[in-house]
């Protein structure tokens, strides 16, 4: 028996959560006033948790590295949030959302958690509407929905292309109400740099005030990590510049197991890299695949002519285009899950059909949709025999109403008009399914330390479906953690305020200060970004969309070497006791340099292909699925949870065996 106890309650899957809520211990309202909780991160997960915990009566201290909770990376989510409301009456249900999520995750998630997620999804929408979140509506005044990849129903709620923004502002307003009441103390421009444990329990954190550089000690009866994902280990990703793994990595080093670090989502529709000056990549929402068709030229001569600037994509005839997703996956077409769409793009580009100078781009074309909508609109308006120009004009209007802000964003960056010529897109790192291991209560392997939102590993298995991260973050923060944390805190009602002058706090503080001093005193010759870019390139080349044992082993060695070089030769200007963005970056990159190594180790160990993790050694060799990823349920049907021992890649592997009682294990097919 592994030391990982998932604490999944007994009983039928439909009853587990209700039963669990009835069974767990509660903290009486009068006692909550004497309990402090630290929440690190104020994105959808942390913001909703902080607000809910404060409302319940706990004293909350919340931390964020930005200057306001409203700026957390969740703000950038574009497309939407899923919920099994079945408002469209298209056969949706909790079970179907549960099933789609488990299947989409390639059968590598924990059934009970996913079912609970589906169960509370409807409440999220109710809650957000009550808070004044202006979701898109139909003319009748009811809520509108759209479709995302990997599903056959329309269950995605949205607010233009700014769903994350509106949901985060909802959580932010709920926080503001509690900040105004003094129930949440907000620490903006603060970075958590370590977890403090006393007698094995999480008792507080060490944080740095990013304005003054002051190191601070904060105590609490429980610590919640909601610090988001670690996609920036690749340097280039769609994550915000400051997104980092530091909080998660620090708790890992203090005993929290890190689960499935190699599960990364590479999103198929991002704006391709244009040159070395680039600091980040930009996503074009998956919602575009509702109307866009993805293709590359069928013939190499056309590819060459395009690259030479002698041919325009609009000049290529229909029959000379390869709509490769529609060709390979007739049932789901352009709406296959992200991992499948990304690999298919890579396959075409590796075969030489990429349509830009770097050979790493495919087309996303709205021509058919513009025509279709234009005709429909002309019909509605009663225009008979509309001219082609009229149809296009009307169709472009419809597309603008749906995706205007995305098209504008594209045009600003690429300087091409996507209404007139197809967009160019390529996969980019977007989301990390891996993260801190948590049990059913969302507690890590450190008692009293919780992880929620993208920071934990929980619900998406080896591949996340579109519009499910927002759902998970808010489910964790509004509806799951506020209940489950009570079970642990019910034993803390007599603890009293936790002093910060103990040896444990002082030692942790000293360790943090020493490390910062060390960083500014290396006074080497290379910038922090130099190391970050170098790490990113190895991650992308050796542990990106396709992985194999040789290259992963090479990655481990190379990352070790860069880390050594970093600690000898990095140059961090400025001092530790001032506003110093370079120092902040240096600390984060130092952690990425450790995490990257564990990532490669995990990818090496998992000699199967599943979801976003594609091992070249593990593909279907024949039959209808020839060339598709091949899962190995006999040997790898587990969560890999790693225990830190000193060297990142020498972590000890603990396995949580996954059980599938309510869903039959099958090869995923989107054909």
């Amino acid at each position, binding site marked *: 028996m592994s030391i990982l106890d998932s604490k999944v309650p007994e009983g039928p899957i439909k009853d587990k959560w209700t039963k669990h809520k009835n069974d767990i211990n509660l903290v009486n309202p009068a006692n909550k006033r004497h309990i402090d909780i630290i929440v690190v991160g104020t994105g959808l997960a942390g913001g909703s948790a902080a607000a809910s915990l404060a409302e319940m009566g706990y004293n909350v201290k919340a931390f964020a590295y930005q*200057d*306001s909770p*409203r*700026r957390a*990376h969740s*703000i*950038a989510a574009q497309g939407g949030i899923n919920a099994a*409301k079945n*408002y469209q009456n298209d056969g949706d249900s909790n079970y179907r959302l549960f099933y789609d999520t488990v299947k989409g995750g390639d059968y590598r998630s924990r059934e009970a958690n996913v079912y609970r997620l589906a169960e*509370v999804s409807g409440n*999220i*929408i*109710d809650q957000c*509407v*009550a*808070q*004044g979140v*202006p*979701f*898109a*509506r*139909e003319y009748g*005044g*009811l809520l509108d929905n759209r479709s995302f990849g990997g599903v056959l129903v329309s269950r995605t709620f949205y*607010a*233009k292309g*700014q769903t994350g*923004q*509106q949901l985060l*502002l909802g959580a*932010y*307003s*709920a926080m*503001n*109400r509690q900040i*105004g009441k003094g129930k949440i103390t907000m620490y*903006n421009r603060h970075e958590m740099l370590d977890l403090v444990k006393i007698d094995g329990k999480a008792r507080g954190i060490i944080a740095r005030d990013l*304005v003054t550089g002051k190191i601070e000690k904060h105590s609490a009866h429980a610590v919640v990590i909601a610090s988001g994902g670690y996609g920036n280990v690749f340097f280039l990703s769609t994550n*915000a*510049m400051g997104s980092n793994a530091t909080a998660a990595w620090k708790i890992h080093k203090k005993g929290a197991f890190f689960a499935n670090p190699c599960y990364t989502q590479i999103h198929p529709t991002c704006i391709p890299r*244009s040159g070395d*000056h*680039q*600091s*980040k990549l930009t*996503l074009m929402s998956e919602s575009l695949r509702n109307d866009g068709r993805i293709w590359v030229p069928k013939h190499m001569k056309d590819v060459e002519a395009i690259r030479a600037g002698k041919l325009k994509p609009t000049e290529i005839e229909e029959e000379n285009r390869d709509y490769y997703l529609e060709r390979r996956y007739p049932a789901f077409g352009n709406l296959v899950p992200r991992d499948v769409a990304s690999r298919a793009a890579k396959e075409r580009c590796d075969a030489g059909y990429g349509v830009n100078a770097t050979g790493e781009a495919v087309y996303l074309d709205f021509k058919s949709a513009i025509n279709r909508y234009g005709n429909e609109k002309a019909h509605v308006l009663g225009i008979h025999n509309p001219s082609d120009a009229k149809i296009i004009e009307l169709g472009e209007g419809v597309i603008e109403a749906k995706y205007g802000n995305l098209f504008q*964003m594209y045009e*600003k*960056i*690429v*300087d091409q008009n996507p209404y007139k010529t197809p967009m160019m897109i390529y996969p980019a790192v977007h989301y990390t399914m891996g993260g801190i291991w948590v049990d059913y209560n969302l507690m890590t392997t450190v008692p009293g330390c919780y992880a929620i939102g993208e920071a934990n590993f929980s619900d998406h298995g080896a591949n996340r479906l579109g519009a499910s991260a927002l759902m998970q973050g808010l489910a964790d923060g*509004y*509806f799951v953690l506020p209940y489950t944390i009570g079970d642990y805190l019910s034993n803390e009602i007599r603890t009293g305020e936790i002093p910060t002058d103990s040896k444990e706090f002082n030692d942790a503080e000293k360790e943090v200060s020493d490390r910062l001093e060390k960083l500014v005193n290396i006074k080497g010759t290379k*910038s922090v*970004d130099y190391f970050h870019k170098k790490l990113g390139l190895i991650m992308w080349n050796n542990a990106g969309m396709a992985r194999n044992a040789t290259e992963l082993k090479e990655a481990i060695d190379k990352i070790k070497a860069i880390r050594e070089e970093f600690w000898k030769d990095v*140059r961090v*200007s400025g001092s530790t006791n*001032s506003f110093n*963005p*370079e120092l902040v970056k240096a600390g984060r990159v130092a952690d990425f340099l450790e995490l990257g190594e564990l990532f490669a180790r995990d990818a090496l160990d998992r000699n199967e292909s599943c979801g976003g993790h594609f091992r070249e050694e593990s593909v279907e060799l024949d039959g209808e699925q020839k060339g598709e990823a091949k899962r190995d349920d006999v040997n790898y049907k587990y969560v890999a949870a790693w225990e830190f021992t000193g060297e990142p890649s020498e972590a000890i592997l603990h396995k949580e065996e996954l059980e599938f009682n309510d869903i039959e294990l099958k090869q995923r097919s989107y054909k």
Partner: protein
Amino acid sequence: MSEKKDMDLTLKIWRQKDAQDKGQMVNYPVKSISPDSSFLEMLDVLNEDLVNKGDEPVAFDHDCREGICGMCSLYINGEAHGPDRKVTTCQLHMRKFKDGDTITIEPWRANAFPVLKDLVVDRSSFDRIQQAGGFISVNTSGNTQDANAIPISKIDADNAMDAATCIGCGACVATCKNASAMLFVSAKVAQFSLLPQGKVERKERVLNMVHQMDLEGFGNCTNTGACEVECPKGISLENIAIMNTEYLKASISKKA
């Protein structure tokens, strides 16, 4: 992609060590900037140069680099978020400039936004205004009514959405000669006054938010409309009109 050639530029940048420092403009040449790079990527290039020379890089706020988090700011050649319209500084691209240009870069200037370092200012006054009333007092229990129980006309929902797209960047304040925060505050007031959920607390909301705005030291609105022009999200002056009406109604009924 742009056909233009790489550019050499001169940057005049405000440098200020900390809140107490007096600060001054400093000139920096930058070379071979791709017209396809964004304004902030251009500053990344400058900073990489400065670090390599052993100098302190220029501090500026940024995070999402997609025009949505509201973290980036910068007063560029006398315009908040630079010369382009309806974009934030992070979305501004260098193709808007010419080889040989001199570009002046300053922080937001307003009493309620003190400079912390170089181009970074403290906008926590915005948060405090939101804490005074920018919310609907509903508990996050999930036991609210079904989301479709109250239909909301598409027009109201769309208008509320337009107001809600404010990213809290502060360009409106930086642009206004009075450093007024009316556009920012009115966007939130208008969003909630358009939705049935927000109607219950509309009076206290507007009174409390405006009161806090005054306490923070923002100036008065004299209807110059500069804020609307520079707002990267196109927040409309109509919101200010809505807020004025709300404020008037609330003040009258309070006296009555």
